[in-house]
């Protein structure tokens, strides 16, 4: 198991868990807000749709294609 922080909440997940899954475990699974103000969550699960763009350790990444790491800081996009 490893521990990471998602939008300020700390949680433990199994090794190999995607950040997308961690977001769903820590909260409502939403990753970003669209240009017209809708909350969005992962759609394609395979790195195509870009709905799961989040900030991971300060960098813009796709949650569905990033594995959680110990100490990772994840912020969904406002």
């Amino acid at each position: 198991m490893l521990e990471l922080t998602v939008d300020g909440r700390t949680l433990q997940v199994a090794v190999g868990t995607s950040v997308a899954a961690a977001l769903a475990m820590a909260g409502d699974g939403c990753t970003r807000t669209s240009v017209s103000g809708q909350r969005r969550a992962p759609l394609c699960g395979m790195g195509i749709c870009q709905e799961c763009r989040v900030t991971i350790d300060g960098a813009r990444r796709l949650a569905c294609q990033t594995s959680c790491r110990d100490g990772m800081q994840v912020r969904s996009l406002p």
Partner: protein
Amino acid sequence: MIEHVDILIIGAGPAGIHAALAAAPSGLRIVLLDDNPLPGGQIWRDGPQASLPTQATRLRERLQACANVQIQGSTRVIARPAPHQLLVENDQRGWIIGYAKLILCTGARELLLPFPGWTLPGVTGAGGLQALIKGGLPVAGERVVVAGSGPLLLASAHSAAKNGARILRIAEQASTRAVAGFATQLPRWPHKWLQSLQLFSPAYRPGSHVLAALGDDRLEGVRLMQQGRIREVPCDRLACGFGLVPNTQLGEALGCALQDRAIAVDAWQASSLADHFAAGECTGFGGSELASVEGSIAGHAAAGDQAAAQRLWPQRARWQGFAAVLNRAFALDPALAALCAPDTLVCRCEDVPFAALAAHCDWREAKLATRCGMGACQGRVCGAATAHLFGWQPSAPRPPFSPARIETLLRLDGHPPA
């Protein structure tokens, strides 16, 4: 500093893995690239809630044992600095790989067609949900409706059910007749026939399609057209995908000819561009068995072993038969092009509604006027959708082939033209 390899393989799904294993005995230096953290592609995606078939695990072990094969995960292709070179990027850095031969195994993505409510959290692709579940998405106790088209719906529902979800409906748009016709052909491929029996679900409803996803901030239910009648089904997740679209952007950008919207290849899996091969779903779909044998043929051909490649032709032909049956059965009902309401968003990156697009005559004009296709997905989702809705041809891909860090793109400036 350019990393030089003999064979560069893009995509580590069934096709890419088999290509690498086929080419490995040659001793040539092989790099296998994938944008996911681990090899496997979609069907053999690894993760805490994935259950890999033994075959897949064995293949990965064999791959790891090849000293001359290097697997680069979490890596995307960004640009082509020069012929036989690709600029790639992972989470840490960007670098250039020079190659003698390239094998494109870029697979396919789901066709995600817009319908009212499809942007609600809780709505995913069918393969999308399966991928998310394998990566650890908890679905235990959740009520799931699967919809769209193709055998992937059953596989997706199966994954969800195995992880504790309640499958309420599997709404397949193909008619009962088409599905039954497909099923009666399956015994020609006993393995697939057995698979279908394992995956069969009493929730399966052919001749059914989604009309709308319902809910305010989150999915709360689905309205379905189910065999002629409208039904509303309260649920927590809607996993909806309408078949597969080959990922041809990279091939197209490199100059490979397309046919029927897939990368065109000959008997050797060679594309129209010398030294460039393609295998798997990006050349047209037909499942993992076809992708695997195509990958092997490409790997042998790229490594110069024509005889070994040719020995696999009969096996490929067998699985091509399956592909043909598959594609016929699950052809899309034209009614699916009419699901959008005027305010249904088609471009999700830029929030462009259907009504704004319908006023235009082609992709380029629509893009300029509405910004559809100008977002981070680079037109992959909306381009496939508008091709289906309006028959528009998306424009040719330009670099960067994926969103890329500026510091990565800076590596291109060592290459001014002669």
